[in-house]
């Protein structure tokens, strides 16, 4: 048994859970629509926001519609709910009735009329319903402006109308109370989403009294907003007040009393919230994209555009939640950390996709039921083996069955080798088993730098423990050997002093007649660059006035800088290299150095000429290139070192990284000062001017790029038209 076994909690609850997981797995796969075409594809998002194909997690199994239940077609139904016993309540809005079906999708009853103290009453356009664990049915009777509480058999208990007149000041004049969604927590508090109500959920206490708003989307004004409100006229301010916080579209209450809400309209990072009893959003958003739903960052030429728009949300076990995107008819499921587990569903005129998806809930056996207001039916989706494995893996991990969880994750990987969460799961298990190398491999496949770093730290420690003695011994022995060899050699050669060039006087160039002058210039220049690095003032002064530098070595340094930057991008260790290696493009990288450098040099020369600078453009070029030496000197070893650092040591890494940059910038500044023979304040002024000039040049460049682009487009269009008409 692996080490983890000892930590396994052994309560009855968890044993039952374990058994349940196994059963779920055994009966996974939908029997109803065996093997038929499923009209949608599935995917997950990787850390770069790219959709990666995935196996189908859920497949349509059967449909529930009014005709097959024998009660006539549904008419634009708006909500459904699965109660604690697994009964499905469908709110058939257009027919003002509630249809209750059992687990086998057989009709149990229809609730349309109820009796209020001897007076018969009914619903009018009801749009939301909720059933508590105690068997109380709450209906948002929208057009009657009330919440109706019934027993699950349809016996009237009470009605909760609009907030009383004492709250009049809370609401805008002319506000008509139209509750559209309702939810009730364990304490009996009633939460209502009302139409045209932008202040959050309306909260009613157990007695049905209005208590205030919960989860109000807080408007944080941006700097621009603040500035604008200072200078805006009253009329403008009034108009601005119309940009109201958004409305909620649906809510659900989970077993721990948290309220999940979805925002109406296009999704942003606040589209789904998890409110604690105090009304604060406690949702964790650790996924690659903070905005739930589809990643929408470009405008493809398609009919369905824009980000997701959530119509409903359902809280599931283990902090998992699923939300229904009305825009593309998809169900997105996230784990408790906000990482996307799977996606399914689509729009269209085939069995198993939607035209107007409005609500969803989870049936016993982890099946998901989605209501379609246009197709007038509810479709039950059953998990495939793949999704069942994912759920089982999460449940087992939560219960402390780590090894069983790993087995599930390995099963998931058999179905989908792209699934990063499974690699994380396996990685965590391997970490627990002290198999750090394997954990590293899995975390790396998962693109999980945090986990990788953790595993690497342990692995590094193991290595050091294992090899520290041997390494130190061999180091000492090696050094001694080296010393021995050298002293022996010295003894053999006699007391001839070594002809080494003194580093402090690099300009004493060896006059080797056989070497070409370019080689000499290069060697001398590079050595001088190292000297300038540590003696900037004297170095740059002599550079200009003693002609110590040369263009060849400057160009070499520039080339080295470009190579260094590329090497940093490509060869920095996994933990510190968040970029997609496949997308690396050497030309773009080189240009990212060359263009600013060229701009700097040219603008520097142009501006300083006007400001009595003494340096020629060649001087500026040489000095600027020499100033970049620290980048090469520091980043090359840093890139090597990044392979042995872990994330906690990242501070050190980034400190050195920044040091290289600051050093270069300082040199650039000093260089400018010395080359042009400026004092500090003149240099400051000129640097500001140069930066402004560079910005201006960039602007001009971009402008001409735009113009050339438009002109090309125009000419292409003309060419096409001519070619076509002839």
């Amino acid at each position, binding site marked *: 048994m692996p080490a983890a076994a000892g930590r396994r909690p052994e309560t009855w609850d968890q044993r039952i859970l374990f058994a349940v997981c196994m059963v779920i797995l*055994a*009966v996974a*796969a*939908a*029997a*109803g629509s*065996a*093997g*038929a*075409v*499923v*009209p*949608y*594809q*599935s*995917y997950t998002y*990787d850390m770069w926001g790219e*959709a*990666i*194909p*995935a*196996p189908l997690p859920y*497949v349509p199994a059967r449909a529930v519609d009014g005709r097959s239940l024998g009660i006539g*077609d549904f008419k634009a139904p708006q909500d459904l709910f699965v109660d604690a016993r697994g009964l499905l309540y469908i709110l058939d809005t257009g027919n003002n009735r509630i249809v209750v079906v059992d687990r086998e999708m057989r009709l149990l009853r229809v609730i349309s009329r109820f009796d209020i103290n001897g007076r018969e009453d009914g619903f009018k356009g009801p749009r939301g319903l909720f059933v508590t664990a105690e068997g109380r049915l709450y209906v948002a009777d929208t057009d009657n402006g009330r919440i109706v509480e019934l027993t699950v058999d349809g016996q009237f208990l009470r009605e909760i109308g609009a907030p009383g007149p004492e709250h009049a000041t809370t609401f805008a004049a002319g506000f008509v109370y139209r509750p559209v969604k309702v939810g009730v927590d364990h304490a009996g508090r009633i939460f209502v989403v009302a139409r045209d109500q932008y202040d959050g959920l309306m909260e009613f206490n157990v007695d049905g009294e209005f208590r205030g708003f919960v989860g109000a989307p807080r408007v944080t004004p941006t700097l621009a907003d603040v500035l604008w409100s200072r200078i805006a006229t009253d009329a403008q301010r009034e108009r601005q007040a119309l940009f109201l916080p958004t409305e909620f579209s649906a809510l659900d209450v989970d077993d721990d009393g948290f309220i999940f809400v979805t925002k109406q309209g296009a999704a942003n990072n606040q589209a789904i919230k998890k409110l604690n009893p105090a009304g604060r959003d406690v949702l964790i958003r650790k996924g690659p994209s903070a905005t739930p739903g589809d990643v929408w960052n470009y405008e*493809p*030429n*398609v*009919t*369905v555009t824009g980000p997701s728009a959530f119509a409903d949300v359902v809280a599931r076990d283990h902090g998992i939640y699923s939300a229904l995107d009305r825009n593309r008819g998809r169900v997105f499921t996230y784990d408790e950390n906000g990482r996307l587990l799977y996606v399914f569903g*689509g*729009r*269209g*005129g*085939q*069995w198993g996709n939607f035209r107007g998806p409005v609500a969803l809930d989870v049936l016993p056996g982890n099946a998901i039921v989605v209501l379609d207001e*246009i*197709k*007038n039916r509810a479709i039950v989706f059953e998990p495939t*083996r*793949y999704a069942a494995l994912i759920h089982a893996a999460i449940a087992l991990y939560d219960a402390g069955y780590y090894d069983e969880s790993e087995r599930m994750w390995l099963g998931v*990987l*058999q179905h*989908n*080798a*792209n*699934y990063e969460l499974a690699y994380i799961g396996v990685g965590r298990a391997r970490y627990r088993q002290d198999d750090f190398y394997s954990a590293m491999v899995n975390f790396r*496949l998962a693109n999980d730098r945090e986990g990788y770093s953790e595993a690497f730290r342990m692995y590094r420690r193991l290595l050091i423990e294992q090899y520290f003695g041997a390494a130190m011994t061999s180091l000492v022995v090696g050094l001694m050997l080296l010393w021995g060899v050298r002293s022996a050699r010295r003894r053999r050669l006699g007391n001839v002093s070594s002809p080494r060039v003194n580093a402090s006087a690099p300009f004493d160039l060896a006059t080797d007649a056989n070497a070409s002058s370019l080689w000499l210039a290069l060697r001398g220049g590079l050595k001088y660059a190292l000297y300038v690095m540590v003696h900037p003032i004297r170095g740059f002064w002599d550079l200009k006035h003693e002609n110590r530098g040369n263009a060849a070595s400057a160009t070499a340094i520039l080339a080295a800088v470009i190579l260094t930057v*590329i090497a940093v991008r*490509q060869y920095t260790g996994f933990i510190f290299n968040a970029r997609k*290696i*496949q997308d*690396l493009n*050497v030309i773009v*990288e080189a240009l990212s150095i060359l263009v600013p450098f060229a701009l700097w040099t040219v603008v520097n020369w142009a501006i300083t000429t006007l400001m009595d600078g003494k340096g020629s453009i060649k001087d500026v070029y040489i000095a600027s290139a020499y100033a970049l030496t620290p980048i090469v000197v520091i980043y090359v070893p840093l890139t090597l070192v990044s392979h042995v650092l872990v994330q906690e040591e990242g501070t050190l890494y980034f400190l050195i990284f920044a040091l290289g940059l600051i050093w270069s910038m300082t040199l650039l500044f000093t260089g400018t000062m010395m080359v042009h023979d400026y004092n500090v304040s003149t240099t400051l002024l000129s640097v500001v001017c140069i930066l402004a000039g560079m910005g201006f040049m960039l602007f001009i460049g971009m402008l001409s790029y735009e113009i050339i682009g438009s002109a090309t*487009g125009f000419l*292409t*269009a003309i060419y*096409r038209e001519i*070619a*076509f008409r002839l």
Partner: protein
Amino acid sequence: MPTKRRPRLIFLAVFLLTGLCVLPAARGAVPAGMVLVAENDFLRLFIDEATTEIAVEDKLSNDVWFSNPPGDQKAKGQIAIKYFAPGAVEGTMDSFNDSVAHEQYVIRPLDTGVRVEYTLGREYGEFALLPGLISEERAAALLERTDDEAAKRALQQALDRNFTRVTLTAVEEGAAATLPASLRVFDGYTLTSPAKRLTNNEVQRFLRVIQSRVMGERIDIEELADLTFDHVRPLIDIALYVLNDNLPSFIMRSAMQAFENVGYTMEDRGLDNTLFGLDPPRPRLERFKVAIEYRLDGPDLVVWVPRDSIEHPVDVIDIGGKYGPRRQKISLPIHSIRVLEFFGAADRNETGYMFVPDGSGALVHLNSVKTSMSQYTVPVYGEDLALGAPLERMNVTRRVHLPVFGLHYGEQAFLAVIEESAPSARISVAVSTGSGSFNRIWSEFVVRPQSAVDLTGEWIYSPVTGYWDTLSKVNVFQYRANEADIRLRYRFLHGENADYAGMAEAYRDYLIEKGALKKRLSPDDEPPFFVELVGAVKKLVPVLGIPRLQSVPLTTYQQASAIAERLAEAGVNRGVLRYLGWHNGGVEHDYPADIKLLGGLGTAADFRALNDVLSGLNWGFYPDVSLMYIYRDRLMDGFSPNRHASRTLDRRIARRYEYDVALFARDPDRASYVLSPRRLGHLVDRFLSSYASLGVPGLSLRHIGTALNSDQREELATIVDRTQAQEIVERQLAKLTQTHGLGLMINGGNDYALGYADYALQIPFSSSRADIYDRDVPFYQMVIHGLVDYAGEPINNAYDPVTQMLKTVEFGGNIYYQWAYAPSETVKETKFNDLYSLNYEDWLGSAIPFYLEIKDNLQAIRGLRMTGHETIAQGVSRTEYDGGWAVLVNYNHEPVVVDGIKVEALNYSLVQRHPSREGG
């Protein structure tokens, strides 16, 4: 409450009456008004000479089929066309309203049938017979023409009420001219009326009417400036009747009727015009000709629209400027022809279904009204990518592989086979949505593919249509019309055979009769185990910062041998290996004119060794190649996209795309070229000369069984329409199999390719399940089971492998896996990341026992015809075969007992009934 009951009673009465009227007609022998035009041993063909509707009587069963539901006023017409006019104007015409109603048709008897020639579109405009100007003298003469007092009176009345009597006379000396500039041609003249004194306004109004009639009926006048006094001179001092302006059309119609009743003809109308120097009335532009032939061919009715009978206006002069500038030369090409939309159309009282060949086949129950869909259309053989790849792909659908459809009600059924022009056909099905609407299924044929070209290239989102669109769109058409005739064959079924199984049998018989399908498997062989191995894929790897595509080996030649040997050891005696991505760069290989083995996969010796190992094991070996789509263009490889790829109608190079799974948009990184069918023969020859040296007996063709694309180049000589493309593909298949003796494996399987294939993989096991469908049926399997070995999707790629295994058994397929030797995560972060569960080790454990079990259990039904299929309980299906064999499949998680036979959970069982009830 009697008030409430009455509408119901009325409804009931109407219902009964219509029922009484329709039913006897539908069931009776020969309806009144029809005449017998042809008869053979099986059928009698009748035609109604007044409406050109036909009826066919099956002499054996006495079933009568009508081309149009008898007695119905709306479901008329045998042919309907859609045509285009300049400016993206679209028009439709049908043989009833635009031909029969004007008696513009000719019925010609043929040896075995009858031909009806229609001229669609009346010759003159609707009110062409009503003169706008007529002299009093001529009017008086007309009145004298007839002795019929009533007709005389009617004409006099029309003249009095709808015309105004005026005379154009010179202004008396001294009177001031008060005409506006637009009427200056009448300077010096005015109008007088014998009946009353005209006000100045009335004078101007009638002058305008006269002026516009003169301008409208003279070709030589284009605008006001062209009008001179000479043009109006013939009118001067003549007593005129001028037709009032702004008359409602019913008055115009009755006035015209009055003229017609006294014998006024188009010649008279021409004479009246020439009297005033005007042109005779111009015929309308929209005149089309189409003929349809009905022939009896043994037990079949063959419906034929000969290509050369289709005529449309070419370079006619649009004198009136109806479609743009006046006197422009225009053509009105016919886009498509709809044939026999209402043949056998079933009304609201019938029960039965329509069969759509979508995927494996689907049924639409009659009158099963769906709330969200009442009509659906599927293109035969999928879309033609040379007409432009779709901008997006939102849904997973199946294709139509077989060009057939059918309808069944009561005791009768028909199967229609599209014999010619199938590649340009679309099949539509519609359910009745209420009274007067029929359940029907029909085909429509594109005569000239059309697409809209945008010329500015700028896309603008239209909030009205909800689509991205361009502002300046121009309709473009295939340079010439498709050359093939349109031919449909209707076969009639009765009684026990009148169901979809009977249709499948009829179609299977038809294919065998035609020689298109023959038995290629021997029933004594063990069933094949299809193993598809993926050799290499490409991956983007940066080399010194430069991204380069490198081949990533997934299964080397040696590893392939090892997998085959391992399976053979486990008892797979009859494996069939398909090898994907084994040459020229992997799965998305280069132009395959010259085969280069992949160094990363092994040496040529390794490849030969693989071939030897497989032939030693007696396995089939089918290396795969993509001949229709070219993934990559390299210099000097014999393929130039400019010259050898198909062109779309807007003259771009035709491409095929993969689509983004999340946003549905085209993925420009995964585009391939559509090889022009013109080039296909050349490529096949070059490929073969290179392939022959490898000595492999088989070949797998990736797209040829499913894809069919035309080439829309603008030159007449190079254009290849889709039917011609099909002929080219067939020639290549014949060359590969007959001339070079290769065994072929295809993907999918359009009807024309099936006859050449040893094996068909990835054939559909379901339909697209459009909302209008009520049920999926294994029609495709019924046609080919026992003739060709087939398989569906790879079992390990299905969403549920166990279900897919059961599905395979249910649909009579064979075991099929797609594997690779390398770990599955090798493809992660490549563009082949959709191959996410390929590692063979993961699947071997379940695949081998399943195969061995099937081999033992289902050998008996191999080679038999599939005769029936039904769902007998929730999650339990029964597939029947000849000889009383049946396979029961249980998808439930608990055992079931059906007909006294227990089927275990997620299992199947083969049973044989007493062969008393064979077939059917």
